[in-house]
C-alpha cells in the first residue's frame, strides 16, 4: 500500500501516538455507525475527528471527516460507506514525518 507522508511539528512527537490510537478507535466506531445508518451520531463523531485532525495537522483526514459530517447532516447517506472506507485507507497509509517548524 502506498504511504501518505504527513509532516508534523517535531514539538508534537510525544502527543502523536496517543492521538493516532484515538483516531483509529474513532474511525472503527464511525464504520459501525455507518453500518447502523445512525446519521446524527455519524455527524457528531465526524465533527470530532475533523476538529482533532485539523488541530494536529492531519488536513486530509480532517477534510474527509468534514465531508462525512456535511453529508450526514444533510441526510445524504449514499456516499457515507465509500467515504468511511476512503478515510480508513487514508488513515492506515499515513506516515508521519517530524519536522522542525
Amino acid at each position, binding site marked *: 500500500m502506498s504511504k501518505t507522508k504527513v509532516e508534523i511539528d517535531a514539538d*508534537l512527537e510525544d*502527543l502523536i501516538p*496517543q492521538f493516532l490510537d484515538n483516531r483509529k478507535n474513532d474511525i472503527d466506531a464511525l464504520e459501525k455507525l455507518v453500518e447502523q445508518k445512525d446519521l446524527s451520531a455519524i455527524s457528531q463523531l465526524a*465533527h470530532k475527528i475533523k*476538529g*482533532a485532525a*485539523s*488541530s494536529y495537522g492531519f*488536513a486530509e483526514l480532517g477534510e474527509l471527516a*468534514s465531508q462525512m459530517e456535511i453529508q450526514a447532516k444533510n441526510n445524504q447517506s449514499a456516499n457515507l460507506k465509500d467515504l468511511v472506507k476512503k478515510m480508513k485507507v487514508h488513515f492506515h497509509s499515513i506516515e508521519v514525518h517530524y519536522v522542525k517548524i
Partner: protein
Amino acid sequence: MPEEKSRLLIVEDDADIRKLLKHFLQEFVDEIVEAEDGATALQYIKSEEFDTILSDIEMPQMNGLKLLANLRSLGQMTPFVVLTAHGDHTRALEALSLGAFDFITKDSKRKLVIESVCAALKFGREMKSSKNDPVRSSHLRKIYADMSKSSEMRLRKIIEGMTS
C-alpha cells in the same frame, strides 16, 4: 505584593485538543484549568477568577455561545477566545457579536494560538488590576469592544474571501 498568578480556562470536549492546547500554552501562563463542556466551565467561572477563557463552540451540555452569554450575564468581562472548527465561521461571528475577544480556527498554527491567547491574557490581567479604578476600567472596556470589532472585521474578510 507578589504578582497574582495568570490563569487560563480551556473549555473543549475533545481531550486530545485540550492536551494540544495545554502543550502550546503552558509555558506562557502560570495555571491552566480544563473543562470538558460549558456547564462545567460555568461552575468554575462562578467560583474562580480567570484571565482568559479559551472555549470551543460546539460542545455537549452547554455550548460555547451559551457559556459566553452566561459569563456576561454574571457581569464578568473576562476575555473570551473562541475556538472554531475549520469552515464554521458563522458560529464564530455569532460569538464575536456576543462579545468574544477573538477567534482561532482549530487548524491554526501554534504561533497564532499563542499570539491570540497571550494577547487575551495580557488584557485580562490589565482588566483585573483595574477593577477598582472605574475610569481605567471603562477605558479598557472600550478597547475590548474595539478589539472584538477588529476580530469581527478580520473574520468577515475571511468569509468574503471564501465566498467570492
